[in-house]
């Protein structure tokens, strides 16, 4: 345990500076995005959510796209040292066990990057909200959900994330993508990100192709029954959620074995 603490400290002293720099870059990009998307007051097309707040149309796509990029880039950078022999030797010869090195990798590449992403996004978003709510605080518009004239108050990030009940089934996805790119970073010796992205895309394309083929073969000659049963829908989403959790765990296991068997 003491040694694990030392390892965290070592990795931080070695990669912390670069990590903090990446956070600054992230913050810069996010501020830029928000800056160019200050909503125009005269544009009357507001999207109202169920709580009577106005949604920022660009927020969720930005949150997901940049989040995906940030988390996968951080994950694919972590083991990149293993692609260069001299660095890999230094890492492997550090007196800590493979398990400790692996957990340290998860802490830095996944947990820390997801938390810091949420935090930075949230803080920038909060400042921004503060600013535009102040700007708009005397204005009212018609909420199409209620038909009433309502003061314009913008929804928060948290509101948006909980606006659709299916969203909660997606919460394992950041871990899933992070795990894939972490594996990619130890699997490939160079160009980790591109190679991982290409192979994952190819794999997904193949799986989707097979699924469609299989689906059309199974459902051939059968007619479609429309179902809006929430239970059934939830069941599919639950399977989706747990399989993304299970896949992340399996990919982490493979990464661990890969780390243990890494030779230089």
């Amino acid at each position: 345990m003491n040694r694990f603490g030392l390892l965290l400290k070592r990795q931080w002293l070695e990669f912390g500076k670069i990590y903090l720099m990446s956070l600054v870059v992230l913050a810069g990009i996010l501020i830029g995005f928000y800056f160019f998307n200050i909503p125009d007051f005269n544009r009357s097309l507001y999207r109202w959510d169920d709580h009577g707040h106005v949604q920022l149309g660009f927020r969720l796509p930005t949150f997901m796209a940049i989040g995906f990029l940030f988390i996968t880039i951080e994950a694919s950078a972590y083991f990149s040292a293993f692609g260069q022999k001299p660095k890999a030797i230094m890492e492997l010869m550090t007196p800590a066990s493979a398990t400790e090195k692996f957990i340290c990798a998860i802490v830095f590449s996944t947990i820390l990057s997801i938390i810091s992403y949420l935090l930075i996004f949230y803080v920038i978003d909060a400042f921004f909200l503060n600013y535009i709510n102040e700007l708009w605080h005397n204005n009212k518009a018609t909420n199409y959900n209620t038909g009433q004239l309502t003061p314009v108050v913008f929804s928060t990030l948290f509101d948006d994330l909980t606006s659709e009940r299916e969203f909660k089934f997606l919460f394992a996805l950041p871990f899933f993508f992070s795990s894939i790119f972490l594996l990619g970073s130890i699997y490939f010796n160079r160009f980790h990100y591109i190679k991982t992205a290409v192979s994952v895309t190819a794999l997904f394309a193949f799986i989707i192709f097979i699924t469609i083929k299989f689906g059309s073969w199974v459902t051939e000659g059968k007619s479609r029954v429309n179902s809006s049963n929430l239970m059934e829908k939830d069941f599919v989403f639950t399977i989706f959620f747990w399989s993304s959790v299970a896949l992340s765990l399996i990919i982490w296991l493979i990464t661990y074995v890969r780390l243990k068997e890494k030779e230089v």
Partner: protein
Amino acid sequence: MIEINNLNFGYSKHKPLFKNMSMRLSNGHIYGLLGKNGAGKSTLLKNLAGLVYPQGGQLNVMGFNPSKRQPALLSQICFIPEEFYLPPVKIDSYLKANAPFYPNFDHEYLATLLKEFDIPASNKLIDMSYGQKKKFIIAFGLATQARLVIMDEPTNGLDIPSKAQFRKIMASALTDERCIIISTHQVRDLDNLIDTVIMLDENDVALKASVEEITTKLAFKRVKEIDESIFYAEPSLSGYNAVMPNYHHEESKLDMELLFNAILAEKTKFKPLFN
């Protein structure tokens, strides 16, 4: 200290590097690992450090199997690779990050070594030249007080004064508890430092003998003419540098380069002498 039993290793199936290699190394010695390019010097060192895994046979390093990469063993190995990497930080923060992993790390000794090597302790690792960096990792490695010191071509990139400093430091680093293995091409840099020669050739150990044993069995001489008693000779300014069996109990100085070439050329003649 180290036991190698029937080690088999190769980077590809068709080209084995070691076939059933066996050897024992003990503490209190500086072993000089010699061999042609591609004979597997670095690979043998990596096997010992657990950086690559044997494909057959057993390795025992201080009671551990290096393939398991247990922290207790790793903290007793100082591995100086030929090509190394140091992060772009100050010496101070490098020490803070790495020294605590070694329970016996000796900061005072490190300070002495850095002084000997003329490296100011306030330096940033990134501003240092290749030679200075190399001296730094050697100093750091020795200050860990690791019992097994493995160095791959340590004098590469060192200037002439640094080589002398290196020899002094290694002479003082050898203790009864320590085992030092140095692979080298530049035999002349190190020949007085090495007390036991290990030569790799043709997938195996071609020779493993102490300098004392070698010079008891062989004589290294300048001769005017070659006769049949001579195992191997190379022309020199005044005749030949020759290796021959030491019939007259002469106490000659081991010429490692000559021995190296001699064994490569006349392996069969030497085999019966060393067994």
